[in-house]
């Protein structure tokens, strides 16, 4: 029983113990807050990428695209494990707003709204056509006009300083001219002379807010067939840049992608003697994670760096606890001598001080975790208050595509942090405890030691 009574009294009555508890609490608080925000940002960013491209992409980075996609698309749509498949034509062009004399380079994505909205979460990114994404390219002000969807950050003046986007109740009438260089299947310019480019005028029908800065700031969505014509992909052997696939509910990503990869290999083999078979070799089958790897990897690297930094913080905490315990145990050497003189074993002394360390860890981690959770729950309110009163923001919302600061506490992450903190406390106490256990009673009970 003394193994419970004594550690509890040491915890409550020794002020130096408060230092150790505070060190653990502070560390846990910091880690809980930063990891939750960082995990939230990474998770949110991954989610947005997943929403944007679907589960699996059969495609090529070549501006030429690949042929025979309608056949493969039909095969995909016959599969039980495929919920939806949508062809996409991608390329680059010049966007001009008539009358302004200004133009900018943009990415153009040709999509079939109905199928693309089934394969991805594109419908959710729209404003005026959210409930009717099939008509995304139909301007509300004149359904007869050819419409286009514009990345939300390309529409000037829609975002305020808090990062909120504002829309007029009626879609604005904006005319946009898109110019592209059409390419042949061999990658050469499809046209010659003065008529080198394809130009088509579209009208703003909606905007898309994916939450991905690079996409929202330079992407124009046009009808699939219009994009094919602009890029030179239309004709008797039409080409597409990619097919975006969404798997049926419950199909594991890896399994689905492996099945499609097999289908694609077989498809390539059956078309090996076709005229444009060489284009099929450029296409790959990838998971959404691999497809968006170049965007996601830097953020994951930042997350890894952050974890490493916090591991160092953990080492510092262990060291602080070590120092505190060294002090406590040095002051408690008399107690160890007394305990041993009444027959307490070395193991029991170790248990006693490790119980003490565990209590420090549990109390510190509990306080830190509670404070961290409370802080996270109020983090957005606090930031709003700071912005309203002092104009201070964690992120400039006019620059970063971040809405609220992520504050969704993951129970498993919280559990790992708490367990690590308790483990750190035990580790920090281990050496001084082992030293205490080795002490002979007579070493500490002699008059000269008092």
């Amino acid at each position: 029983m003394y193994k419970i009574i004594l550690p509890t009294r040491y915890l409550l009555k020794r002020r130096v113990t408060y230092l150790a508890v505070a060190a653990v609490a502070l560390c846990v608080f910091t880690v809980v807050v930063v990891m939750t925000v960082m995990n939230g940002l990474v998770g949110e960013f991954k989610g947005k990428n997943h929403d944007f491209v679907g589960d699996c992409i059969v495609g090529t980075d070549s501006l030429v695209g690949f042929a025979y996609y309608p056949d493969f698309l039909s095969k995909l749509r016959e599969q039980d494990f495929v919920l939806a498949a949508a062809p996409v034509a991608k390329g680059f062009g010049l966007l001009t707003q008539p009358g302004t004399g200004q133009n900018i380079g943009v990415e153009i994505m040709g999509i079939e709204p109905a199928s693309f909205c089934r394969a991805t979460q594109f419908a959710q990114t729209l404003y005026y056509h959210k409930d009717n994404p099939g008509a995304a390219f139909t301007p509300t002000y004149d359904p007869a006009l050819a419409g286009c969807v514009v990345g939300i950050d390309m529409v000037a003046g829609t975002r305020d300083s808090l990062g909120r986007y504002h829309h007029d109740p009626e879609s604005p009438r904006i005319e946009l001219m898109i110019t592209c260089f059409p390419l042949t299947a061999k990658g050469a310019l499809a046209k010659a002379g003065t008529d080198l480019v394809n130009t088509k005028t579209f009208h703003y029908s909606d905007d898309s807010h994916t939450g991905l800065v690079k996409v929202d700031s330079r992407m124009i969505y046009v009808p699939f067939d219009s994009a094919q014509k602009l890029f030179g992909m239309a004709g008797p052997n039409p080409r597409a840049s990619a097919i975006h696939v969404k798997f049926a509910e419950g199909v594991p990503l890896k399994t689905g992608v492996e099945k499609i990869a097999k289908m694609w290999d077989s498809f390539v083999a059956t078309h090996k003697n076709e005229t444009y078979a060489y284009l099929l070799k450029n296409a790959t089958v990838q998971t959404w994670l691999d497809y968006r790897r170049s965007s996601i990897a830097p953020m994951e690297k930042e997350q890894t760096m952050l974890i490493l930094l916090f591991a160092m913080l953990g080492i510092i905490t262990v060291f602080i606890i070590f120092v505190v315990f060294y002090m406590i145990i040095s002051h408690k050497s008399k107690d160890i001598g007394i305990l041993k003189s009444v027959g307490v074993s070395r193991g029991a002394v170790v248990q006693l001080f490790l119980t003490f360390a565990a209590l420090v860890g549990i109390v510190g981690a509990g306080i830190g975790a509670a404070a961290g959770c409370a802080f996270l729950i109020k983090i957005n309110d606090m930031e709003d208050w700071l912005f309203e009163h002092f104009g201070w923001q964690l992120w400039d919302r006019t620059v970063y595509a971040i809405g609220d600061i992520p504050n969704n506490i993951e129970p498993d992450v919280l559990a790992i942090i708490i367990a690590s903190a308790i483990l750190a406390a035990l580790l920090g106490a281990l050496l001084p405890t082992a030293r205490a256990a080795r002490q002979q009673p007579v070493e500490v009970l002699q008059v000269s030691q008092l």
Partner: protein
Amino acid sequence: MNEILTASGIYKSYKMGQTKIEVLKGLDLTVQKGRFIAIVGASGSGKSTLLHILGALDEPDDGSVQFEGKRLDKFRAKQLNRFRNKMVGFVFQFYHLLDELNVLENVALPAMAQCSSFGWLKRRNQAKKHAKRLLERLGLAERTNHKPYQLSGGERQRVAIARALMNEPKLLLVDEPTGNLDSETGNGILNVLEELNNNGQTIVMVTHDETIAQRAHSVIRLADGKIV
């Protein structure tokens, strides 16, 4: 056999810097059951060292101690812990009470040490009753919930005696029990020890004070590391 403790050829030395100080030089001692023995000697003569060796708190460099015919140096760690817990009770000059525990808990500590937390839950009522009886016997019935710092020197020493008696040890080892007390309080402590001895408790006490030593049945004088 009436001998409870036998020490044969005990040698003990300490190192102080480069110097080796020989404290005990081949000391022999026998303690009979039920006796009250005082070991006297000048400061630094090795009295406390001898007491620690007799109670297995320290080991001799050479020689052996036998308790009821069993050599302490042959004991394993577990047996030594049991020996310190059950067979001997220590009373130190500086009381050595645990500041975090109250008087009752300090007295009950040897009983707590011999059982697990669950075992203690079973035994605690009985142990606490026994601890209270000891405290009553030593005139500390009103002090059970006090902390050591709230007690006088004499009271602390009586708590230390009660703790030493908690597991009803066969041998009580007492180190300068009155060294920190005024003569009246010290006399009270000696009365307690005498009463215990009258009830059959074997006691070995070390002191530098001849007057105090005279309260024992026999006095052993220690000089130059040997009994003279």
